[in-house]
């Protein structure tokens, strides 16, 4: 009878070892005195935990009976099928094969980046911490800010091969549960091998993946995330990525930044208006230059006419080629700067800005007014807080410039019409992407185009369709 039992246990252990054949990183140790055998990945466990929880207790045991007693403790989870065991080991657990049972203990603790400042969404005043690649750390950053039991977390795993952990966070008494259900359904329906980032995940669950516009807001700031949560939005966190998705989103949300709320309301309002002006500049300035210089010379006032004409005088190409060439150069510079380490990146800026800009004008390849317009639209595009949105707008700009080069102002207007019509057809989790402008919700305007003083911001955004729309009592 004991012999048979032995065989069975060996079989299970052998099975596990077979599963992990040719996995050189697997660690196995035997405790012959008590007949125990442990298997784990040394790189995904916390060494201290491993010693305290597993190695020390096991090596201090002398008899098999003691082992049985030890394994009764709750941190050791009994396992019966090998699939769970494999999953446990992969997830940073230690599998303990005793004489007649297998137990798992979670001592997960991989190497991780510590919480640092956000690079893509830095602000001047306000909290500086940013999400890291570990979902548990990220959730802890949020829980630290919202100490409420109503903050619920749904877990799903995405990716047939990668089995990445995805967490859906929402406030039970604020968020609209239909949205939660919809979002969860979309995430569970994903069928792919692996998803590596939040930005990638959001493209799998968007309403219209072919659109140029991001339909969910992504952020790596815990303060933004928690404010979105309490306003009734739903967050999606994905393990191994600092990018958090907030849904549903509206087009205008991409133009607000968290420090609007940390500064005085007048300043916040001014900054928001600046960003909408930046939107217009980034989309239209260069296109307008092209339209005016190639079709509508009547529009130039007399005082500017000679300056403009003189600067165009030596340029051999029509304005549209000139503009596309310079815009393309700026994109090259931007991409090069993004790929290189910061110190080299600065050099690129100097080389590009001064050398190419100055030389191109002197060589008569472009007019200096165009350089001004191209540079200001590039700068304007960086004013938009969301990196995704600003990148989308920069791509669209090329289309608008080409249209303006073909049909002048009419092309420009045609471009705007196409963008607006496209935006009108977009939705985020089924709600209009252009809310609160179309359909009109005037109540929300005071937190979209301006940032009203806090006593006026009484309600949560209509888009969130929250069951609890009142945010605060109106003190005034």
């Amino acid at each position: 009878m004991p012999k048979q039992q032995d065989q069975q246990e060996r079989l299970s252990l052998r099975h596990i070892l077979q599963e992990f054949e040719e996995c050189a990183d697997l660690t196995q140790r035997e405790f012959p005195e008590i007949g125990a055998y442990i298997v784990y990945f040394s790189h995904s466990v916390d060494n201290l935990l491993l010693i305290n929880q597993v190695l020390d207790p096991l090596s201090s045991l002398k008899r098999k009976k003691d082992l049985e007693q030890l394994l009764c403790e709750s941190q050791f989870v009994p396992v019966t099928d090998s699939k769970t065991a494999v999953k446990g080991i992969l997830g940073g657990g230690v599998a303990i094969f005793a004489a007649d049972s297998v137990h798992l203990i979670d001592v997960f603790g991989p190497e991780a980046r510590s919480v640092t400042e956000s690079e893509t969404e830095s602000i001047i005043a306000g909290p500086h911490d940013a999400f890291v690649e570990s979902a548990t750390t990220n959730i802890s950053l949020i829980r630290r800010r919202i100490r409420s039991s109503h903050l619920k977390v749904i877990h799903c795993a995405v990716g047939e091969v990668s089995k990445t952990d995805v967490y859906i966070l929402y406030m039970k008494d604020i968020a609209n549960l239909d949205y939660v259900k919809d979002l969860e359904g979309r995430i569970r329906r994903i069928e792919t091998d692996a998803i590596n980032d939040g930005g990638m995940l959001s493209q799998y669950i968007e309403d219209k993946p072919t659109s140029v516009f991001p339909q969910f807001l992504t952020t790596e700031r815990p303060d933004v995330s928690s404010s979105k949560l309490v306003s009734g939005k739903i967050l999606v966190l994905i393990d191994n990525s600092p990018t958090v998705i907030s849904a549903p989103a509206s087009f205008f949300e991409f133009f607000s930044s968290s420090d609007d709320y940390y500064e005085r309301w007048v300043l916040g309002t001014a900054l928001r208006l600046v960003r909408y002006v930046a939107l217009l500049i980034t989309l239209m300035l260069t296109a307008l230059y092209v339209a005016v210089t190639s079709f509508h010379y009547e529009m130039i006032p007399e005082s500017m006419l000679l300056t403009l004409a003189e600067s165009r005088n030596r340029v051999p190409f029509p304005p549209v080629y000139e503009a596309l060439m310079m815009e393309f150069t700026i994109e090259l510079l931007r991409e090069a700067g993004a790929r290189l380490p910061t110190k080299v990146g600065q050099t690129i800026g100097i080389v590009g800005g001064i050398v190419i800009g100055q030389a191109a004008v002197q060589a008569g390849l472009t007019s200096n007014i165009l350089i001004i317009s191209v540079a200001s639209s590039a700068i304007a595009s960086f004013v938009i807080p969301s990196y995704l949105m600003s990148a989308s707008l920069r791509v669209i700009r090329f289309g608008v410039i080409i249209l303006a080069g073909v049909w002048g102002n009419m092309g420009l207007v045609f471009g705007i019409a196409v963008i607006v019509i496209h935006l009108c057809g977009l939705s985020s989790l089924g709600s209009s992407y252009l809310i609160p402008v179309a359909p009109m919700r005037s109540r929300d305007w005071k937190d979209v185009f301006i940032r009203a003083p806090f006593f006026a911001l009484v309600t949560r955004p209509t888009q969130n369709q929250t069951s609890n729309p009142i945010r605060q009592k109106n003190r005034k």
Partner: protein
Amino acid sequence: MVKRIAAMLALVLLLTGCSTDQRILDRLGMVQTAAFDSTEGGKLLVTASIPVIDPNTEEHREILQAETDSVKEARLVFSRQTDLRVVSGQMRELLFGMDLAEKGLWKYVETQLRDPSVGFSVKLTIVDGKAGELLAAEHKPHADTGRYITHLLEKEASGNNIPATTLYEFSRDYNDDGIDVIAPIVSDGSDKVRVSGIALFAGDRMVMRVPVKEGLIFALCRGKLKRGEAALDLEGQSGKREVAVFSSVTSKRKVKVHRLPDGRFKVDLYVSLQGSVLDYTGQRTLKEEADRHELEKEVALSIEDKAEQLIRQMQQKKTDALGLGQYVRNSLSYKAWEDMDWREMYPEVEVKCHAKVKIKDYGKYM
């Protein structure tokens, strides 16, 4: 599927869109000023000034001339004289020679109005003599005579002394049966261009000119002044000429129309004027309030006198440049106005001018 077809169509559109209507800025000859004269053969002499953009040349403008039958035909002739495409969308100024102005301008103005590339804000000026010669002449240190005239008139108009007339105002007043058109006159003063008066029209023909000296009186009678400068001649007590120089003049005009028992009209013109006196060559000191009041009265009298004289001249020439007809019209019924020939009635109208002058301050020195 349908969407894909739509996208394809859009692409085709873009590719075929490369248009023949491109007007690239640096390949255009943008007429800045056009001057019109009549020639002895009864034809039209059109002179156009086009700014030269190339910074490497000494020349700042190119003068093109053509003798044609119609205004727009000239553009075709111009095109043959230059390597640039001649367009009129940047035109700022139209100059008309005196002989043309006396024969009638409307048909030339009408062609400009019809052209969609010409805006309403193009200025219209009469030249004492030949317009083309003035435009072609060099006026050192001004490299471009066309621009020089434009700026000169802009400045004058902003001082309210000589009103600038745009195409909009010309066609508005020409088509109004209660007011007549006016336009500034410039003349060639050898090395300088001078503003030399205001041309008054009856219909589209120039019939009278108001000299510069009386420009202010005319402006006071015609409408509001916002920022004027004025030197007013006064008959002093001792018969000596005195001058009072007013600055920052603001004025208002009011018109009242009465019907006299004999069927004629009587128009009361109320002009009120405010300003500060900067210079006064007369006997009185400005220290005393009483003296200032007297001066006010004297200036008022002088204005009334000159205005009535001016209006009488205008009545003789049958030009209602002050727009009195508008007020007469508004005092009548529609039928009565339609039945009346205002231009014939106008000389009969009795016009009385009432001026009120107020000296706001007299500078910072007693």
